[in-house]
C-alpha cells in the first residue's frame, strides 16, 4: 500500500504544480466552453440545448491534454524504469496513476462544469444531471486514455497519436454521457437507461485500461 500511496500523492503534487496538468486542464475546459457561444451565437435556447454536449466535448478534450505527459514524464526522468522494476504489480501502479490523473484533472472539471455551465444557460436539473454524468464518465475517459498514453510513451510528439488512438475508444462514453445528461431534462428515454450503461462503461474501463496500458508499457520499455 505504501508505494501506491506514495505514487498517488507524488503524481497529484506534480499535477497541481506549475507545468502539471491540473490547472491547465480546468483552464482549457473553461476557455473552450467560453469559445462556443462566440461560434454558435448568443441564442440562449440553443445554448441550453447543446450545453451538455459542449461541456462533455470540452471535458473529453481537457482530459486528453494531461494524459500526454502521464507516462512520458516518468519515462524521461527514469522513474518509469524504477516502477517497472518494483515489486508492486504494474497494473495496480498504472491504475493508481490513473486515479491520480482523475483526481487532479477530472474531478476539477466536474466541479467547474456547473459553474461554467451557467454561461450556457444550464441550471437546475440539467446541470445536476450533467454533473452526475461527468462524475461517472470522466474516470472512463482517464482510464481509456491510459491505453493511448502507454502506447505513445516513447514517442517524441506522441500527443497527436495519443488523441487519434484514444478518441475512437472514448466515443461510446461520450454518446451515453450526453444521452444521459439530455435524458434528464426531457425526451422519451428515462435517465436511468443511458446512465447505467455509462456506469458499465466506466467499470469496464477501470479494468481494461490498466491491463492494456500495463501490457503496452511492458512492450514499449523492453
Amino acid at each position, binding site marked *: 500500500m505504501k508505494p501506491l500511496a506514495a505514487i498517488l500523492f507524488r503524481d497529484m503534487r506534480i499535477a497541481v504544480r506549475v507545468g502539471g496538468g491540473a490547472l491547465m486542464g480546468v483552464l482549457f475546459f473553461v476557455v473552450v466552453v467560453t469559445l462556443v457561444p462566440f461560434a454558435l451565437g448568443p441564442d440562449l435556447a440553443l445554448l441550453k440545448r447543446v450545453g451538455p454536449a459542449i461541456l462533455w466535448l470540452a471535458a473529453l478534450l481537457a482530459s486528453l491534454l494531461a494524459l500526454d505527459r502521464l507516462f512520458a514524464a516518468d519515462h524521461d526522468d527514469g522513474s518509469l524504469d524504477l516502477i517497472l522494476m518494483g515489486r508492486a504489480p504494474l497494473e495496480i501502479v498504472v491504475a493508481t496513476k490513473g486515479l491520480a490523473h482523475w483526481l487532479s484533472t477530472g474531478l476539477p472539471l466536474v466541479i467547474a462544469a456547473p459553474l461554467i455551465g451557467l454561461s450556457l444557460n444550464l441550471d437546475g436539473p440539467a446541470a445536476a444531471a450533467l454533473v452526475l454524468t461527468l462524475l461517472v464518465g470522466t474516470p472512463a475517459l482517464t482510464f481509456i486514455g491510459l*491505453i493511448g498514453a502507454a*502506447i*505513445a510513451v*516513447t*514517442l517524441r510528439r*506522441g500527443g497527436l*497519436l495519443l488523441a*487519434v*488512438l484514444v*478518441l*475512437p*475508444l472514448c*466515443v461510446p462514453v461520450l454518446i451515453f454521457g450526453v444521452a444521459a445528461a439530455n435524458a434528464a431534462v426531457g425526451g422519451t428515454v428515462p435517465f436511468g437507461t443511458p446512465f447505467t450503461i455509462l456506469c458499465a462503461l466506466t467499470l469496464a474501463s477501470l479494468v*481494461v485500461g490498466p491491463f*492494456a496500458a500495463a*501490457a*503496452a508499457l511492458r*512492450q*514499449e520499455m*523492453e
Partner: protein
Amino acid sequence: MAIADLANPARFLAFADRTIPWLGGVAVIAFAFGINQAMLAPDDYQQGATVKIMFLHVPGAWLGMLGWGVMTVAALGTLVWRHPLADVTAKATAPIGAAFTLMCLVTGSLWGRPTWGTYWVWDARLTSVLLLFLLYLGVIAVWRTVEDPSRAARAAAILTLVGAIDLPIIKFSVEWWNTLHQPASVMRMGGSTIDKSILIPLLIMTVAFTLTFATLVLAAMRNEILRRRVRTLRLIQASAAS
C-alpha cells in the same frame, strides 16, 4: 507443409511467389463470373437497379470486419505465441482492411442517398463502422509513428485487441438499437431472407472480393518482408561505413 513451416520468412516468400499469381487469377475469374451474374440479376421492385450497390457494399463490410479479425489473430500471434510472421500479417492487413471499410462506407453512402434520402445518418450500424474505420487509421498511425518495427508491432497488437470489441458491436448493432440500416438478412438464425436471384450473385461477389483480399494481403506481406530486409541491409551498411 504445415502452417508452422511458413513461419520461416524465406519459405513464406517462396510460398507467396507460387500462390499469389494463382490466387489472383482465380479472383479475376470469380469477378468475371460475379459481375456477369450481377448484371443478370433482377432489379428490386422498390429500389430499381440501385440494389446492385449491395454487391459492392456488403462484401466491403464483411471484409472490413474480416480484416480486423485477421489483425486480432495476428495480434495474439505477436503477443502470446511470438509467431515470427504475425506482425508482418498485422501490418500488411491494416491498410487493406481499411480500404474495404472505406469502400463499404462510401458505397453505403451513395446507396443511402436515393433510397433513404440522405448520404449519412448517425445510427448505430453506420457509427460503429465509422469507428472501425477510425480505429484502422489509428493502428496504421501507430505502425508509421513508432520506428522500431517490433515495438510498433506490440503497440499495434494491444490496440488491435482493445479495438476488437467493435466487431460484435457492429454485428449486433442492428438488433440492439433502432437503426435506419436494415437488420441482418444474410447471416441470421433461420436462414437468409434475400431472394436467391440476388443472394447468389452476392455470394459470388463476396467470394471474388475475399480472394482479392487474400491475394492483396499475401502480396503486402511479401512486400513487408522484403522491406524489412532492405532496412536491415541499410542498417548494416550504415554501421559498416561509420
